[in-house]
C-alpha cells in the first residue's frame, strides 16, 4: 500500500492529519528500511497515538504498543516491553526462554529483544512507546538508552511518542527523524467538528442546520476555544452543549425581531449574547458533577446566577474549627508587624490606636487608588532596579486575592506565576502561638472572665490536627516540598514527610493556611467573624 493510499484511508476517520500519516506511512512502509528510532511529538489531543496506531495497523507491520502511563517504575516499563513484544509475536508461552519474563535493566532488554527478534522470521518490528516522557521513576538515561535499541537490533524500529516539545539532541543521538503533530488550526478544527454531524435537536429544520451550524461552530472557536487553546474534545463538547440552547428560539417558535419573519445567524447571535458570556465560559471548565442543563428557554435569556453545581459550596465545619481556620487565614495574610495595631486589645480602645488604624487604612486607600490609576495607564509596573519593594497591602491586591479561584491559590506549591510584592496572594507561614493569640483576638463570643477561664490552646491543637488532615492548614515545610515532582529523572518525590500519618511538629515549626480567602470569608461570616474587618486595609 502506498503512503498516499494509507493517508487517504486514515483521513476519512481522522481528518487534517494527511501530512503526518503520509510521513509515518513512508517511514514504516514494509518495502523500505525504517529508521532505527523515530520521535513523534505534539501537545496532548493532537491525535499522535491514534494516527501512529492507525498507520501501523493499516500497513500490517508487526508492532507492540506500550503505554507508559500504565507503568509504575522503569523496571515495570522494561518488563512490559518484553511481554508485549512476545505477545505481539504470539510467542507468549515461550516466556521462560527469554529471561524468565524478567527484565530489570535496559542492557538486559537489548539482549532479550535481540534474541526474540533474531529468532522470529518477520523482517521488521515496530515498538511504540506511548507517552514515554511521562514515565514515572525513570532513570535519567532511559530515553537515550531506548533510542539506542534500534541501533543495536537491526530489525527494530523504536517510536517514542512525546507530549512535550523535545529539546535539541535530547536523545544524545544525531539525525533522529522527528514527526511533529502541531495543534489544529482554526480551519482544521472547525473542519473536524463539521465532519461529524451536528447534535440533533428535535423540531429543527434541516436547512437551518446546514446554514447556521457552520457559522455557529466557527463563532464558538473564535470566542471560546481559540483564545483558551482548548483541545478538540472540549470544542466538541461545548458545541454539543450550546447548540440546542442556541437554536432554542427557532424550536420554540419565537418570532424573530426585525419583522423579517426568519431567524438567521446574526439574529440568533444577538439574541444569545449572554449564552456565550456565561454558559460558554462555564462550559470550558469541566466539573466532576455536570451541571443540569436548563431545558426551559427562559433560562437562556436570563442566566440563573447559581451556576455552582456543588450541593453546598461551603464546607460544613464545626464552629470551633471554623474559627481556628479563620484565625489561621488571618495569621497567614496579615504581616506580623501589624499585629499589635490590628489585634491588640490593650490598644484597641485608646485614641492613639484608633488614629493609627485610621492612618493605616487611609494610606492603604491612597495606595490602592494610585495602583488603580497605574493599571489604567496600562504600563506594566516594572519593579525598581534592585530596590526592594515594601510589602503593600492594597485594596486591589486584596480584591484580586479574593477574586482568584481556590484553584490557583490552594494548589500545592502555590501558583508559580504569582510573584512580586503581593502579600495577600501568597499565604505566609506563621508559628502556632500566633494562631492561638489571634484566635483570642477574634473570638466572637469571648469568655466573660478571660483570666479565670481555662486555656483553649489544647482544644485548638486537637482541631488543628483534623484541619491538617483535611489539608486546610498545613505545616509550612510540607507545602514547599510538595511543589515539584519530577517525572523523568526526578526519582521518587521526597514527599514522605507529607504522608498524613506524620503529625509530629516542633514548637517553633511554622504553619500555613492552604485555602483561598473567598470562602473563608463566607464561612467565617456564619460564625460571626467578618474577615474584612480584621484584614489589613479592610474591604470597605
Amino acid at each position, binding site marked *: 500500500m502506498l503512503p498516499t493510499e494509507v493517508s487517504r484511508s486514515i483521513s476519512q476517520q481522522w481528518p487534517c492529519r494527511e501530512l503526518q500519516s503520509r510521513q509515518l506511512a513512508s517511514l514504516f512502509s514494509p518495502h523500505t528500511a525504517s529508521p532505527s528510532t523515530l520521535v513523534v511529538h505534539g501537545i496532548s489531543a493532537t491525535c499522535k497515538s491514534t494516527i501512529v496506531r492507525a498507520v501501523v495497523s493499516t500497513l500490517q507491520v508487526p508492532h507492540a504498543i506500550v503505554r507508559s502511563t500504565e507503568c509504575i517504575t522503569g523496571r515495570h516499563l522494561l518488563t512490559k516491553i518484553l511481554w508485549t513484544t512476545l505477545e505481539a509475536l504470539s510467542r507468549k508461552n515461550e516466556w521462560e526462554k527469554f529471561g524468565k519474563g524478567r527484565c530489570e535493566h535496559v542492557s538486559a532488554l537489548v539482549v532479550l529483544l535481540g534474541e526474540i527478534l533474531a529468532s522470529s522470521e518477520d523482517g521488521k518490528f515496530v515498538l511504540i512507546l506511548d507517552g514515554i516522557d511521562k514515565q514515572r521513576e525513570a532513570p535519567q538515561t532511559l530515553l537515550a538508552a531506548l533510542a539506542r535499541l534500534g541501533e543495536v537490533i537491526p530489525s527494530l524500529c523504536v517510536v517514542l511518542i512525546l507530549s512535550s516539545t523535545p529539546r535539541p539532541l535530547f536523545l544524545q543521538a544525531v539525525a533522529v527523524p522527528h514527526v511533529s503533530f502541531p495543534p489544529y488550526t482554526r480551519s482544521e478544527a472547525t473542519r473536524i467538528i463539521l465532519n461529524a454531524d451536528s447534535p440533533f435537536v428535535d423540531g429543527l429544520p434541516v436547512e437551518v442546520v446546514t446554514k447556521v451550524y457552520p457559522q455557529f461552530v466557527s463563532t464558538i472557536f473564535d470566542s471560546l476555544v481559540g483564545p483558551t487553546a482548548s483541545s478538540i474534545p472540549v470544542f466538541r463538547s461545548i458545541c454539543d452543549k450550546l447548540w440546542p440552547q442556541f437554536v432554542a428560539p427557532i424550536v420554540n417558535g419565537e418570532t424573530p425581531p426585525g419583522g423579517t419573519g426568519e431567524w438567521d445567524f446574526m439574529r440568533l447571535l444577538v439574541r444569545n449574547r449572554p449564552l456565550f458570556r456565561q454558559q460558554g465560559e462555564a462550559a470550558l471548565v469541566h466539573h466532576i458533577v455536570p451541571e443540569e442543563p436548563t431545558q426551559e428557554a427562559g433560562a437562556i435569556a436570563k442566566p440563573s446566577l447559581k451556576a455552582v453545581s456543588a450541593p453546598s459550596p461551603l464546607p460544613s*465545619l464545626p*464552629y470551633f474549627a471554623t474559627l481556628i481556620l479563620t484565625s489561621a487565614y488571618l495569621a497567614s495574610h496579615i504581616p506580623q508587624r501589624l499585629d499589635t495595631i490590628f489585634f491588640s486589645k490593650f490598644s484597641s480602645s485608646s485614641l492613639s490606636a484608633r488614629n493609627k488604624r485610621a492612618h493605616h487604612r487611609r494610606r492603604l486607600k491612597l495606595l490602592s487608588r494610585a495602583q488603580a490609576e497605574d493599571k489604567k495607564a496600562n504600563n506594566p509596573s516594572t519593579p525598581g532596579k534592585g530596590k526592594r519593594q515594601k510589602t503593600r497591602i492594597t485594596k486591589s491586591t486584596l480584591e484580586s486575592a479574593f477574586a482568584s479561584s481556590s484553584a490557583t491559590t490552594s*494548589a500545592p506549591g502555590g501558583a508559580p506565576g504569582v510573584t512580586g510584592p503581593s502579600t495577600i496572594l501568597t499565604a505566609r507561614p506563621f508559628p502556632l502561638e500566633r494562631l492561638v493569640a489571634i484566635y483570642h483576638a477574634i473570638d466572637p463570643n469571648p469568655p466573660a472572665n478571660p483570666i479565670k477561664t481555662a486555656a483553649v490552646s489544647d482544644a485548638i491543637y486537637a482541631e488543628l490536627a483534623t484541619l491538617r488532615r483535611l489539608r486546610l492548614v498545613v505545616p509550612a515545610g510540607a507545602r514547599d516540598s510538595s511543589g515539584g515532582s519530577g517525572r523523568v529523572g526526578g526519582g521518587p518525590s521526597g514527599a514522605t514527610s507529607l504522608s498524613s500519618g506524620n503529625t509530629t511538629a516542633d514548637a517553633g515549626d511554622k504553619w500555613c493556611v492552604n485555602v483561598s480567602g473567598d470562602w473563608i470569608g463566607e464561612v467565617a461570616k456564619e460564625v460571626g467573624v467578618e474577615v474584612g474587618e480584621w484584614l489589613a486595609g479592610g474591604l470597605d
Partner: protein
Amino acid sequence: MALSLLESEAPDLSRDGLNTQGVYIYRPANAKPNKPQNERPPKRRKVESDGQEKQEEKSQGAQARPFVPLLNGEESASSVDLRYNAYQRLWSKQEAKIQEVLEDVDSKILEEVSSFVKESSAQIYDGCIPSALVTVGSNVSSLGRLVTRLNERLITSGEGGVVVLESGDAPNIKTTLKNIIRAAVTNTEGNDGYQSFLTDREGPRLLAYDLDLLGDYVQRKGVTKLVLAFRDSEAFDPNLLTDLLSLLSSWLDRIPFTLLFGISTSVELFEGRLPRSSVALLRGQYFELHEASNCVDRIYERLQADPDGEFWLGRSITGVLFERTSDYFYTPEAFCRTVKYAYMSHFFANPLAVLFSKDSASAGLPHGKLCQAVRNLPSFRALCEDLVEDGHSKQVRNLLENDEYLFQECLKYLETGQKQMRNIFEAVKSTHTFLKHLNLSKKIGVSDISILALSGELHNSQIVNDILNTMKTLDSEGLKGLLATVPENLADSPQVREIQRDFEALLEAYPNSKPLQSGYDNRNSVAKVTVVQQRVQVTKSKAKQPKQNVEYTQILDRFHATLGAYFAETLVGPQDLYLYEVFLLDMRYPLKDTVAPRPRFAIERALSSPFDYLISTSDTPENRLSAKQPVTAILYQLYLESGAIVNAHDLWSAFYAVFESDQGDECDERVIMALFYRALSELKALGVVKNSRKKVDHIAKTSWAGL
C-alpha cells in the same frame, strides 16, 4: 535427642526476653562445645500457645473482677459482681439501640449510592471514570459504615466489591496500588486466596503493584463493579491522587472502576485542589450524608427517652456532649464512646449502683455500709426532712435505724424515681411532637428540650408557654391532630378521655359546619376604631360567636388546663427526686477532662505552681519563687517574666539569685550551674525555648503561658 531439643529451646527463650531487656551479657553461639560449628542457628519461632494461654489467664482474671470494691474496700465481692453485671446488662441494651440508629440513619443514601454504582459506567460518561462525591461534613466516620454495607451488597450480588483506601495506605503510588490489588483480592478470596492468586498463575510472576494482576482477577471473577473508596480524600497527597487517577483512567477499559470520594470540606474545594487534567477524567454525581448532629440527636433520644430507660445522664453531661458535637469534629461513634464512659464511670465508682441489679434484694447482701452511704445522700436528707414535716417521724426513725427497712424503701424509691424520669422524657418527646405539630419551631431538637427538662426549667420555659398559648387558638381540625399525638400516659387519664368524648360528640352534633373556631383566635376578634375627642381609640372586642364555637372553646379551655397540669406534674427537676444519685449521673468533671484532655494547661500549671501537684516540704505553703521548688519550675517562672528573646546569662544570674537568697553563702555555684543546664535543657525538650537565630547568646521564647 530430648537433650538437644531442650538445649535448642533454651536460647529461644532468652532471645524473646531480649526484646524488653535493656542490658544482657553477650554469649557467642559457638561457645557451646557440643554444638557443631557450621550448624545454622535455630530460627526464631513464634511461641504461640504459651502467650495465648497467658493472655487468656489474664483476661480471665480481668473477667472475674473488673471493678474494685468500693466503700473503703469493704464492699463485698458479690456486690461488686452485681454492679458489673448490671452495667453489662444496661449497656448491651443501649448499644443495640445505638447500632440500630446508626444503621438506619444512612440507609437512604446507601440506596442512592448503590443504585449509582449499578447504573453508572464509563460508557455512559464518555470514558470518564464514574465517581460519586459523598460530602460527609464533620461526620467523618459515616462513610466507613456506608462503604462496608455497600461492600456486603456487592459481594452478595457477585458484582464485585469495594476497596477502601485511606490516606495512610497511600504513601506512594507503588504501595497504593499494592494495597488496592491486595484489598480487592482478599475481599472475596481471603488472605490465602491472595497468596495463591499471586503464585498460581501462568506466565511470569508479576510485580505486586502491576494492575495486570487486578485485570486478571476482574476477568477471572467476572467482576462488573470495582468500587474504590477514598475515605478521606482531602488527606491524600494531591500529586499522588493525580498520578493514580491518570493510571486508573488508562486501565478503565479493562477494569470497571467506580470511585467514591469522601469529602469533608466541599466539592468545589476538592475539585480546585486537583489539576484540571485530572478533574477532566472524572464524572459523576454527588451525595450528601447527614450531619453528625442529626444522627447524634437521634441516638440521644433513643438512649434517654426510650420507655424502658433505667439510667439517665444529667443536664451537665448532656451539655458537654452536645457542645462537643456542635463545636468540634465529633463523630457519632465518639459520642457513643463518651456516653459509654459516663455509664462506666457511674457503675465503677458509685456503690449505690448495686441497686440496679434485679437480684440485689434476693442476694441477701450485708447492706450495713450501703445503708450508711444512702443515709449520707443529700436527697435522703431532703426525704427525711419532708417526712418529718408531714408528721411521719416514726417512719424517719425507722429509716435511720433499721437497715433492712431502709433497703426495701430504697428499692421502692428507686422504682418511683425511674418512673418519674420516664415520664419526664415522655413529656419531652411529646413537647417535641407538639412543637412540630404546631409549627412553632423547627430548630429546637430533643436535646435542647432535654437539657431544659433535666435542669427542671422546662415547665416555666418559653417552649411550653408557646405550646399552651398556640394550642388555645387551634381550630377543631388542629385539635383533632393534637389529640392524636398526646402521649399515652396522658391519654389514659379520665380528664383527657372525657375531653375526647365531648369533642367527638360536638363534632358529630355539627357535622357539616366548617372547622370550629376557637374563641381565642385573633380572626374572631374585631378591631373597632372610634374617635373620641380627637383621639383615636382602637378597641378590640370579640365578635359574636356561634353556639358551637362557644362550646368548642370550652373544650379547648379544659384541654388547656389538663395539659398545663400535666406539664406541671410531670416536669419536676430530676434533682428533686429522692435517690436521684442512683439513677442519674450528672458529674461533669471526670468526663470533660477525659473527653478533652488539656496537656498543655496541665504542664503550664505544673511548672508555674508545682506545689499544686507535689507535696511541699516547707511548712508555709507559699507560691513565691523559692529554691525548694523543682529547678525546671523555677527557671520556667523566670522565663515567664522575660520578653520574646532573653539573654541566657541574665537568666542564669536570676536563677542563681533565687538560690543565693535562699541558701545564703553556702550555695555551690557549680552545682547550681549544673541544675541550671538541666532545667534549660528540660525546657527545651518541652518545646518552650529554642536557640535564637538573631543573637547568639540569646534564647527565643516559643510559648506563652495562658493561651
